């Protein structure tokens, strides 16, 4: 059973001695993050990496175990003497809710404290819907997901992936809703989620989370430098350097969709000239003019053309649609080639719903990058398509959530209490919101609430 060590430490201290909370918290934060980074590890390794003495490490691990934050129940492999006891983060102690909000889909999932995704669900949802509808649907799906993956210590945080830049780089939980989308102006999405789930909320851009998802769960595993390109209505890039996501000064890196590109005598932004709106517009024109037999037939049968339909028609061999996607790929490739020469990545990963449909854009990007890059840059370069789909955003949101939850600046203020829900700043924020309902049920109720 986890204990709040601030109370114990207050009783035990002698006159004039500092509180244990004041002296132990920094080393607890360091040790817990060393355990997270090298899970599982051993006491010996922790002593070596933390440069703390054996007695201090032993004391701090005992405290972390009392707080329920680590698990030392497993033995490692013996290399001569006794088998060492493995030290792990107690990842199943709490849960995180994660969600991706894309232009035309919602994804929700549940992750453990290590950032491992345990379950996920995706459904169509137009982000142009009123924010009230979005908040209700999101809350409903998150509640259902949490009921499915109950944990004794309950929910510790909510990590959202949103289709826009989230300003700021501080790790603190959100106390107000950033104006990521114009429709959210003045709508308290963060406040509502915090109140409904009694847990802190974090937010990252979808390009950031997808890049992190690809880095930790997809093609970027074990890679030091990666360029991630998301192709959708907007086109954005995520940059990984030395195995870490580069977020820039304002969290606004990789806005390549705003760069100007040229096609014949036309000039426009990459978003406008190569994004899914262009693919859709050109697809409709090809259907109306009869240039695309596939899409024209689709229209005759009463279907409504989407950018995905254009991509699928291209995959079926429709020449007009192949041309549309090739044009998009060449323009994206021009910009990606510039970035490739600048960053010299080991791998370039292309992602997005259209990319999942076929390899036509991928082929065009490869052609443009290999044609316009320095030979040294492309010698070992791999350009591939993501296999993670929208899961990349959820996996990345889970990883980002775990990093923010255990970020030293935030962790130091809750580690002695054993739960971020007891973080003083968060508790005060929650109390300051309008009537806060009790925390959601954390054991499966006999009769589950409706979705």
């Amino acid at each position, binding site marked *: 059973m986890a204990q709040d060590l601030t109370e114990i430490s207050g009783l035990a201290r002698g006159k004039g001695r500092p509180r244990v909370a004041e002296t132990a918290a920094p080393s607890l934060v360091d040790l817990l993050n060393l355990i997270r980074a090298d899970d599982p590890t051993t006491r010996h390794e922790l002593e070596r990496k933390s440069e703390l003495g054996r007695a201090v490490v032993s004391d701090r691990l005992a405290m972390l175990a009392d707080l329920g934050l680590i698990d030392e129940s497993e033995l490692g492999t013996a290399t001569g003497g006794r088998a060492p006891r493995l030290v792990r983060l107690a990842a199943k102690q709490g849960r995180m809710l994660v969600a*991706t909000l*894309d232009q035309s*889909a919602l*994804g929700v*999932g549940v992750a453990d404290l290590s950032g*491992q*995704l*345990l*379950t*996920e*669900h*995706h*459904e*169509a949802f137009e982000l142009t819907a009123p924010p009230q509808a979005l908040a209700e*649907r999101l809350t*409903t*799906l998150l509640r*259902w997901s949490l009921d*499915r*993956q109950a944990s004794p210590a309950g929910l510790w945080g909510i990590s959202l992936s949103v289709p826009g830049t989230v300003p700021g780089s501080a790790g603190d939980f959100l106390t107000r809703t950033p104006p990521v989308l114009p429709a959210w102006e003045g709508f308290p999405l963060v406040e509502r989620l915090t109140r409904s789930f009694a847990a802190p909320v974090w937010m990252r851009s979808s390009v950031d989370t997808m890049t992190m998802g690809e880095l930790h*769960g*997809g093609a970027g595993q074990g890679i030091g430098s990666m360029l991630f390109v998301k192709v959708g209505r907007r086109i954005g890039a995520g940059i990984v350097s030395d195995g870490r996501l580069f977020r820039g000064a304002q969290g606004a890196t990789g806005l390549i969709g705003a760069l100007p590109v040229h096609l014949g005598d036309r000039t426009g932004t990459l978003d406008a000239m190569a994004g899914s709106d262009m693919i859709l517009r050109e697809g409709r024109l090809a259907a109306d003019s009869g240039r695309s037999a596939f899409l024209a037939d689709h229209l005759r049968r009463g279907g409504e053309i989407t950018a*995905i339909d254009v991509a*699928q028609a291209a*995959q*079926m061999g429709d020449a007009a649609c192949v041309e549309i996607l090739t044009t998009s790929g060449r323009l994206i490739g021009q910009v990606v080639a510039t970035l490739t020469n600048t960053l010299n990545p080991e791998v370039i990963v292309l992602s997005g*719903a259209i990319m*999942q*449909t*076929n*390899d036509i854009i991928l082929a065009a990007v490869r052609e443009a990058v290999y044609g316009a890059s320095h030979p040294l840059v492309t010698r070992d370069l791999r350009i591939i398509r993501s*296999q*993670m*789909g*929208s*899961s990349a955003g959820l996996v990345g949101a889970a990883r980002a959530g775990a990093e923010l939850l255990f970020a030293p600046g935030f962790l130091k203020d809750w580690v002695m209490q054993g739960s971020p829900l007891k973080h003083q700043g968060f508790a005060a924020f929650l109390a300051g919101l309008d009537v806060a309902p009790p925390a959601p049920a954390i054991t499966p109720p*006999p*009769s*589950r*609430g*409706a*979705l």
Partner: protein
Amino acid sequence: MTISGLGPHGERAAPPERVALLPEDRAAAKARAFRVAVVLHTLESDWARQQLSGIVGVLGDCGTAVTHVIDCGFSPSRQVAALDGLLAQKPDAVISLPVANQEVALAHARLAEAGIKLILLDNAPTGLLPGTHYGTLVSADNFGLGLIAAEGLSPHLPQGSAVGLLGYGADFFATNEREIAFSQWMQTRRPDVTICQDAFANIEEAAPKTAAMLAAHPDLAGLFVVWDTPALQAADIVRRHAKPLPMATVDLGEDAAIGLAQGAPFAVIAAQQPYLQGVAAAQTTILTLLGRLTPAWIALPGITVTRENVVESFQRIWRSPAPQAMLKAVGLIF
């Protein structure tokens, strides 16, 4: 083709036509004499038998031997043991329906690590990725099936009434999608209806869960059960209930179809196309083994079946004549 749902990783569905086989594909497959194993959740349901029939037939056309057909009895541990056993047999491919999520994920991943091609049916455990761990997921549009059930049951629900939703307790993509879609439709189109929700952990629990739900909510006006085998167990309880209770379910199994033809308790069934799904899975397997590009998710649309179209739907889905009891119930024979 209209597909309402998204795939397990948010993929947009590809139609089964994407994996049509050309004569040269069949010839190439015959020349290589592949061996394929099939691992299903059960072999006891009409759905499983039809699915298997589609798989085996197409693979036979391609000179591919089905070396193992394994019934996991809905048990994750039995499935893990079966998949680990197949590692030693080294089939070229395994067509598997994962019966759970986390419990069976690693066993499926081990097949991929051993170089065995994996084609999934109906469920993709969290963490397994197309192209890395498996080739393609082939399933019904399960979200669409939940919408069909909700839309079909709605006219039977009076204003301000309550409807029961009996879901499956396991974390399973297909049944999760049906449950979520049913609720979503009711909440957006019939906000006056209250949803009373519960879940069964295994099929034997469906009847007691239904009885408990009816005891707690005697005024229930309808009931949706996420597939037909547990729905038949629930129907036994519903028939003994004080007042008629229209039901909706998924899968046009023979007994449920006869119940639908008789007008009670089933009001609507959202039918999958298991034979065609088996065909698509087998075609995908052949293309994967030949190294062709296959989509991450292939989905087949659901079919709305009511008493009015139950006979032709039965023929269409099962490719066999409707049973005498069904024909009699709809007045086509006397």
